[in-house]
């Protein structure tokens, strides 16, 4: 059995179509190359680099849209999970994530252009690293091959380490980068170790085969089950690192505090979202393969593990945010807590198993999109405040309502949305997660509902601390001078949060369609690759 594919990947497959399916990633790579060559032609100034990056992002976005349009009808054969023997997958989920990623990257780029571009002397390097991590994340959601998962996670992580410590004169950044890298390397090593065990056990690097192995061999077969459990746990450790789930979250506050705000924003959303979607894809594959009564043996404990990790992540994130004086650090802990909420949604579809209870995946997708706006807004405002005053302490926010109402009002909206209060989109995100949990009607579901609700309450307090500083604290400092573009960006985010609340349905509908498509695709994939099993899952 080959490392790379079970069959000849090119047999009967249109190469042009294949290239088209991966054109967004190819476009990202081309953009990186263009960024490398650009200084040779036009000098190292930020402007030409910015133009190249902007064009690259737009082209990638366009290509991802095209791909999404094509794969939604399953037109590319051999690539959607039906051909998961291959290394890469192009399906609505991956294309959709790439679209979101590009929108988010555009927001980060805009933030950078507003704040850092003028003083940035190493713009080419910065963007090579940023685009590199974007490429890694785009890869993470497009594969079910264990080896490529590792490659993707490393592609996403290595540039992230460097970008966190990008300003080498900044000691905090250097320390953050080192911590990030040590944690990242250890968890990558653990993950590789787990994968080696799994490969040794199953003889394949394909997650679908792994799931098939569990489905046919069962879970409780002597020492192999120990091997399987250890391998899976170690494998999930790598994902948990990206998601920053407890106990792999320690890098998160330090890295977020030390890095530039744009980078923090980028990591807080994109890295977690990619990790969660990877988790979802792997979990779905297992769900589709493992059927009752095995899912009682296998999926339920896994769901409990994910659920408990999610609840603990939430709780620790929220409690740790209590005493923070640095807003960046506070928001870092808040992002840990939100990773917990999103993992709760993951626990739902693992628990529900193969029949395809789509509510969990739908809630996860909806939450990721809403979370993107919330964090882009909150971190963006933090960035604007930091650029003006040079400090990210809570004190820097004192009297912001008077000093910069157009920053304070969107900040209140973003923070209240992060709490999950109506009438902001965060409420809708939480609502769908809670509905999905409630729909399980199980101990796990209600346990997580209670955990989520209690955590909402805990989180209120520290979000409120920022609001209190902004609105109530007297401060005689001069008005905040913020670039108009930055103000526009954060207010757009706030507006999006309001609109996504009022018009909650379209987002839900598209997420629902996407997740339903995923269930069908995954189900048909596993039934294709298995002749030993009656294929009746999904539909």
């Amino acid at each position, binding site marked *: 059995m080959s490392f790379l594919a079970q069959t000849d990947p090119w047999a009967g497959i249109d190469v042009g179509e294949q290239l088209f399916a991966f054109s967004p990633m190819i476009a990202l790579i081309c953009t990186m190359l263009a960024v490398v060559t650009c200084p040779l032609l036009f000098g190292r100034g930020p402007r030409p680099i910015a133009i190249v990056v902007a064009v690259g992002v737009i082209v990638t976005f366009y290509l991802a849209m095209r791909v999404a349009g094509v794969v939604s009808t399953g037109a590319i054969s051999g690539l959607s999970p039906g051909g998961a023997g291959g290394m890469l997958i192009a399906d609505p989920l991956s294309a959709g994530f790439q679209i979101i990623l590009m929108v988010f990257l555009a927001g980060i780029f805009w933030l950078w252009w507003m704040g850092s571009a003028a003083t940035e002397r190493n713009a080419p390097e910065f963007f090579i690293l940023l685009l590199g991590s974007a490429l890694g994340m785009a890869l993470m959601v497009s594969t079910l091959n264990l080896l490529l998962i590792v490659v993707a996670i490393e592609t996403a992580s290595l540039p992230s380490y460097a970008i966190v410590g990008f300003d080498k004169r900044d000691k905090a950044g250097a320390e953050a980068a080192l911590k990030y890298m040590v944690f990242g390397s250890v968890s990558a090593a653990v993950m590789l170790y787990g994968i080696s065990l799994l490969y040794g056990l199953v003889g394949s690097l394909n997650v679908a085969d792994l799931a098939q192995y569990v489905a046919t061999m069962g879970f409780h077969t002597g020492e192999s089950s120990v091997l399987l459990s250890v391998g899976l746990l170690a494998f999930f450790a790598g994902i948990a690192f990206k998601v920053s789930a407890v106990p792999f979250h320690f890098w998160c506050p330090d890295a977020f505090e030390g890095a530039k705000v744009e980078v923090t924003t980028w990591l807080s959303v994109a890295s977690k979202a990619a990790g969660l979607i990877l988790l979802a894809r792997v979990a779905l594959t297992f769900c589709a393969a493992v059927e009752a009564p095995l899912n009682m043996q296998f999926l339920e404990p896994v769901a409990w593990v994910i659920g408990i990790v999610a609840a603990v992540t939430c709780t620790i994130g929220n409690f740790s945010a209590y005493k923070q004086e640095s807003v960046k650090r506070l928001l870092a802990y808040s992002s840990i807590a939100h990773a917990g909420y999103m993992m709760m949604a993951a626990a739902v579809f693992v628990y529900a198993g193969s029949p*395809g209870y789509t509510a969990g995946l739908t809630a996860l997708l909806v939450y990721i999109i809403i979370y993107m706006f919330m964090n882009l807004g909150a971190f963006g405002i933090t960035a604007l405040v930091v650029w003006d005053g040079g400090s990210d302490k809570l004190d820097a926010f004192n009297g912001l309502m008077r000093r910069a109402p157009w920053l304070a009002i969107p900040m209140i909206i973003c923070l209240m949305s992060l709490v999950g209060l109506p009438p902001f989109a965060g409420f809708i995100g939480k609502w769908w997660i809670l509905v999905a949990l409630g729909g399980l*009607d199980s101990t796990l579901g209600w346990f997580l509902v209670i955990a989520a609700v209690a955590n909402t309450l805990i989180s209120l307090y520290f979000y409120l601390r920022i609001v209190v500083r902004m609105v109530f604290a007297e401060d005689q400092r001069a008005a905040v001078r913020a670039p108009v573009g930055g103000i526009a960006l954060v207010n757009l985010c706030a507006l999006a949060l309001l609109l996504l609340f009022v018009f909650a349905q379209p987002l*839900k509908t598209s997420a629902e369609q996407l997740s339903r498509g995923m269930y069908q695709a995954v189900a048909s994939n596993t039934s294709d690759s298995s002749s030993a099993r009656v294929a009746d899952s999904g539909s």
Partner: protein
Amino acid sequence: MDSWLLTLIIISPLVGAALLLLPRRGSDATIRWAALGISLITAVLTVLAIAAFYADPPTASGDGFTLKAYVPWIGAELRDSSGLDISGNSPNIDIAYSVGIDGISVWLLALTAFLMPLAILGSFTAIRTRVREYYILLLLLHMAMLGVFCARDLLLFYVFFEFTLVPLYFLIGIWGGPQRRYAANKFFIFTLAGSVLTFAGVVFLAYYAYTVRGDLTLNLWTLTEMGKNGEIPFNVQWWLFLAFAAGFAIKVPFFPVHTWLPLAHTEAPTAGSVILAGVLLKLGTYGFCRLSIPILPEAAFHLAPVVAVLAIIGIIYAALAAWVQEDVKKLVAYSSVSHLGFCMLGLFSLKVAGVSGAVIYMVNHGLSTGALFLVIGCIYERYHTRSIYEIGGLARQMPWVAFFLIFFTLSSIGLPGLNGFIGEFLVLLGTATSATTTDMKAAGPLGYGYVIPAALGIILGAVYMLWMCQRVLFGPLKEPAGTPDTSTGLTKDLTPREIGFLVPIALVCIFLGVYPKPVLDSFEGAITQNILHASAEATVTQSDETQLEQLTAAAEGTPLNPPLVRGEARTAPLDHGVAESGDARVAADTPRGSNESGASEALWRAGP
């Protein structure tokens, strides 16, 4: 017809708030008058809504609501577009922007729209900093409160209910007294703590509706029908009741969880106190009345004695606490806790008389306590103190203040002829007759035993309120040095503007005290149809009897019979609690004797 009127009412303060943002250079006076104008527009629209309500009253065969509007918010679109294509895995979802008013909410809506212009008028001189933000927040609060009373979808209700927190938090925290930040935080965290539990309850109820009906619905009408048909088993009701009560009881505020209120009241600016006492506390009782009792009738019946005992403890405890307050505002705040205890007692008598009394008590309490806070605000603006020990004998200095303070005190302690009386009377009547039997079974959960201690609370109420009046108004003149402060353009006694916002309340108080019939009439239909949904209406709809006779008859003549047809197989996992609850209620399962009730029940079921 008119189905957009309520939406217009809800939206108008929001549009107004947006308008206030516009003139960046507008003077403070412009902003004040603009805010007043906007709230008056809302009030006029509300008058139109009341007129429309009377022109087209809800019929007995409908769901009791009029001026309905329904726009799918989440879910319905999905069902329409793909129809049956949806696999059984994801429920059809019916969560909508759905508004409407019935005989109860119309008057609470009216109360809100009536008090807000007066509260705005009452802040003209008191609020001198950050004027624009103040009125924007007041208008946002206005929108949320109006929305709560109009909402007919549980999620919409919850959204508005929660949103009231945010503006009031800032109103207290920015424009409040010396301890404002502590008070604001305590208020926010207390109320949110309760309402997140309510939210868990909402999620569970939605899920439960899905298991029973196959639709994930939060339509209040559907949920009420589920409660009426007994589709929710007892132990589910029990837990849901606790979850709902967590949010509503804190808002009421109910005895053990009332501690945020005196602080919030003391620290809030005058308009904040008026709105807080006048309307926001009613959100809690309204929640009980609109959700807990109709959707969870068995649990409400079962837990009514507990609620009543706590209400009575609250009545007496808060009255005693009010007695020893030094701060006049805190005294009135504790009196609110005491009075809201009466509301709860009346609601949980589960009798038409008691619930009518409770609802009109809500309106009356909003009027009298709101007015008391306005009068105290007038005193405070002049003397910069609210301590009973620092001011005294003001009647000679400010006869108008003395008149209004005594007037609203009397209204608050329930002098017959003023508005407070009718509510107190009906609440006690409902409570006393709650357990009256007709066909050899206990009808309501409460009885005479609850009335006696509650009546003691009325006496205590008279004691502390009159004592306060005496200390503040009569005796030797006591004024802190340098007061009265007329530097802000105030006169020694009330200005015409201040008289202008107190007189309308006084007139309404007299009107409701003398002739409450139109209001009470509209309650009955709503209560029998939407709240108690038992068969009481048969005996109370004769219109030619006098009001009290009708209500007495209703209270004595008809038991509350929480419907007991239980959901079948679907409720199986949760069924074991039903057995233990069953024996308590098994008697009610027997068919009722009277033909009228059968007929009215048939009428009920004919509804949509």
